[in-house]
């Protein structure tokens, strides 16, 4: 049975002013899988992620061509609410940015923006999210202390929990482990492997090894072009394009 496509990109290009960043990318992203987007720096991996929840709208003079479909619906249709889209498609950034609030308030931030969520619902949502992000044990005694006082690895997992509290369908992660120690990295990866059972996950890993550890599918971007896309096994063992081969064997990038 072929996996269902959660997200479809149809000939998507993105420009910053006159500069093309992402060029003519067509890609299907399956539900309940982890897609790893790899490629050298400046190849528009982050740009691609930001397009998926329309954070790209915030770029001054940014311009998008092509269509992005979520469950078959164009996310740029005028009747799509961008704030609602962003709760369906959550994102974790490379550098954890806790808001200057308590841990509890950080995790409850998204759900609190909606009306009519009770305190007890929030409490259980916060706990559930922190558990799923594998950080509950470390913060349960200090939920009302500032999130900024946590270590980098804990902050990043709290930021993941903050996204999980949105109860999103898609989780985007942009080099989420780049600043983390190996143990925190392992915890995040384990959390992702559990989460993919009922989420669509798109990650820009910070290295090829991470892609091979957790990716079901791999897309290789270079210079804003999608060079190759396939199952992790295929891309890593029998890359179709010599540039992919060069990249994963570490000949450049």
């Amino acid at each position, binding site marked *: 049975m072929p996996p269902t496509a959660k997200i479809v990109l149809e000939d998507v290009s993105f420009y910053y002013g006159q500069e093309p960043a992402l060029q003519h990318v067509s890609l299907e992203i399956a539900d309940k899988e982890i897609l790893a987007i790899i490629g050298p720096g400046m190849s528009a991996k982050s740009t691609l992620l930001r397009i998926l*929840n329309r954070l790209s709208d915030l770029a001054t003079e940014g311009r998008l061509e092509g269509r992005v479909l979520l469950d078959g619906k164009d996310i740029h249709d005028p009747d799509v609410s961008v*704030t609602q889209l*962003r709760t369906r498609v*959550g994102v974790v950034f490379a550098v954890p940015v806790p*808001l*200057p609030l308590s841990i509890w308030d950080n995790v409850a*931030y998204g759900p609190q923006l909606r009306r009519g969520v009770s305190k007890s619902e929030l409490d259980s949502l916060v706990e559930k999210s922190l558990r799923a992000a594998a950080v509950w044990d470390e913060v349960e005694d200090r939920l009302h202390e500032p999130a900024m*006082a946590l270590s980098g690895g804990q902050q990043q997992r709290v930021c993941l929990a903050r996204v999980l509290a949105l109860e999103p369908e898609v989780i985007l992660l942009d080099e989420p482990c780049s600043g983390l120690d190996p143990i925190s990295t392992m915890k995040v990866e384990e959390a992702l492997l559990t989460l993919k059972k009922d989420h669509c996950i798109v990650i820009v890993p910070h290295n090829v090894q991470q892609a091979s550890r957790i990716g079901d599918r791999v897309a290789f971007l270079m210079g804003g072009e999608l060079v190759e896309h396939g199952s992790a096994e295929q891309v890593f063992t029998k890359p179709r394009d010599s540039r992919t081969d060069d990249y994963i064997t570490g000949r450049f990038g």
Partner: protein
Amino acid sequence: MRVPRYTTQKVAFGIITAAAVGVVIPLVLVIAYIVVQGIGAISWEFISAMPRSGMREGGILPALVGTIWLTIGTAVTSIPFGVGAGIYLSEYAADNSLTRTIRLAIINLAGVPSVVYGLFGLGLFVIFLRFGMSIVAGSLTLGIMTLPVIISTTEQALASVPQSFRIVNASLGGTTWQGIRKVTLRQALPGIITGVILGLERAAGETAPILFTVAAFYLPRLPHSALDQTMALPYHLFVISTQVPGMPIQIQYGTALVLMVFVLTMNLLATLIRRYFRRRRQW
């Protein structure tokens, strides 16, 4: 022969220190002089009684109360518009010719002499809008004069909040307004409060803008309503220093001392608030 480097360094350090100390000296002298000259006039009666005998005796209560009312009125008229405009310019306005014009207007407003505000207030509020010489007219005039300070400090305080907080708010499905309310404004609050108080402080001490809009020469009673005239400390000080023959020097300096304490108290308040919030800030 070259002067050794550490000698130049010492000389430069000396000059800079002297300059810093030099700035403090006039301030200390002014304060000390006013305290020494005026302290003898200060008594409970001085701040709680009406002036008598052509202001040569009694207290300054109506002027003190008038200045308090005018400061409150200025706050009420200038804070909502000033903070609102600052939020708009920092968080919403695109960089286009309209907003550039608004910014230019604000900068120029800040440079308008206060007596011009006074005349403007006379024309618009006292005569055209028929408020007459009144606390309302004076407060509005002072409020407009204070706007530029509040707008630009609000804008700067917001601009110093890291952009990443706004992106996180957006990425969690927050609207710009939700981000402002829940994160940005709270972080910018100490800066905004400081700006507001500094603006109000200046308004409290101004004479020219209230001269034609509210200030009474001699009105030994408290104002009945917001449409009433009132005495006010800065104008009262001007009057007793220049317009009343045979005025005891001590009363002049006593009045100056009360005005100074009023303004410095606001200043102290601003410092305390800023310190309180800065200690709680986490970035």
